[in-house]
């Protein structure tokens, strides 16, 4: 690991702060469920973990894929369900 990784980390936090601050309070619940779905990005690590040689690590990867997938699919779907309801008269 070099300084690039840390740079990416810090810059991403700044970008996060910048864009999230602009989300109005009325959308805070969908923001939480939507960002939750994004934290399901762990799924790509989980997919790679299934290639781990040795039984234990592989099965952990398997469970991780299930968990992350619940997050991704459930998160984006329920967010869509909520956002569909926000209407203006």
């Amino acid at each position, binding site marked *: 690991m070099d300084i690039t990784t840390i740079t990416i*980390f810090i810059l991403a936090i700044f970008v996060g702060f910048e864009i999230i601050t602009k989300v109005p309070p*009325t959308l805070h619940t969908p923001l939480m469920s939507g*960002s939750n779905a994004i934290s399901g*990005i762990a799924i790509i*690590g989980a997919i790679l973990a299934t290639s781990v040689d040795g039984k234990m690590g592989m099965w952990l990867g398997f469970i991780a894929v299930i968990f992350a997938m*619940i997050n991704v699919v459930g998160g984006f779907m329920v967010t869509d369900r909520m956002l569909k309801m926000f209407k*203006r008269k």
Partner: protein
Amino acid sequence: MEDISYLISAVLFIYGLKMLSHPRTARNGNILASIGMLIAIVATVYFGVKLDFMMIGIAMIIGSIIGVFFAIKVEMTQMPQLVAIFNGFGGAASALVATSEFLKNDGLRLPGIDPSILLIISITLSVLIGTLTFTGSFIAFGKLQGLISTKPITFKGQQLVNAILAIIMFSAAYLVPDYGTTSLYVIIGLSALLGILLVIPIGGADMPVVISLLNSYSGIAAAMTGFVLVNSGNSSAGNALIICGSLVGASGMILTKIMCKGMNRSLVNVIFGAVGSEVQGSSGEGKEVNIKSYSTEEAAMIFDAAEKIIIVPGYGLAVAQAQHAVRELADFLEDSGKKVYYAIHPVAGRMPGHMNVLLAEANISYELLKDLDEINPEFKDCDVALVLGANDVVNPAARTDKSSPIFGMPILDVDKSRTVIINKRTMNPGFAGVQNELFGYDNSIMVFGDAKDMLVKLLSDLKELDS
């Protein structure tokens, strides 16, 4: 190649989140972010080496079925619970990936593997935060669902126990190079315990803070897992996790900050303060509160004469599932030429934006929902403020009574309106254990009963008056 795919995903996530800044564009933003996720997943599977497609496919199908089931079944009132368990699954996934990386390197003791200090630190943090998020979220879920007491559960020396656990855990992390997997299992076990111990002392009304914080943790755990991947030679996937995890971590942090501000409490106070564990004797006790209790018929007459009405929803509205009943009442009032607005306190309900989602479900225009700063100047020329299942967020003691546990909390100035009609089930004090002096004010009127029943009766009484 997967680098470029992950870059596209990251851009889509950021742009999707940016589109959440307005209700008009928000839905497309969410769709954009989900496309970003699809690209990331497809790229990982496509470019991955030695992957067991069968296994991945089965896991994805199982996860999708469970996810779809939750997403369709959940009621809007239960959204805090759903977000809590999703936070938990996210944290668990991150911790599992880090653990799997660890085992792959045989506890970092394989010959030729350099158990670099950075790898050990990132694995420890990833496992710690991920596991703690998992168990903590399930406790939060249990509290929100009413499976566990919503009262703070405290015992003597709780903070000391937490501190000791943390010290043992960091010692175990330090000993990883010598003890390998054994150390890791100690870290996992203690993190799980710590997650439970950190959430059980937190009371029901502090849940918005806890859920926001766990939301943030689930992101930070993903970012830490990203560091694990980078340190074990998988930098493209690792960077993707770092970027997305940081976005989510920042988002949760901002929400946590907003919630704390909404209660005028510091994060430390929420986590370790256990407010609500004992009824505070300082305020409320000495003061006699004489209330006026009206029937819905009498309340209907007041509404009939009113021009401008502000509705203040609280957690009681969610419990009673009264959002549709509110809409029907508001529709009737608007049809009779009255103005109706909604005042949303930042910590009303059990999670950020909880009330907004409920009212949106009932088809109430988001433009009528006003936040604290916007609505407070409006109360002085408001005829009726209708408080539905809210208590602490309208308690004037927060402005004046220095001995009150909620002193300094920004409140909705309902007491400034001509008449305040408060609907509650019983006279029980609010979460903070404080009797609300508002109930005894000259311009306050109590209407007791379940919010939904009360609103339905009120509406029929109003219709009768009109005919």
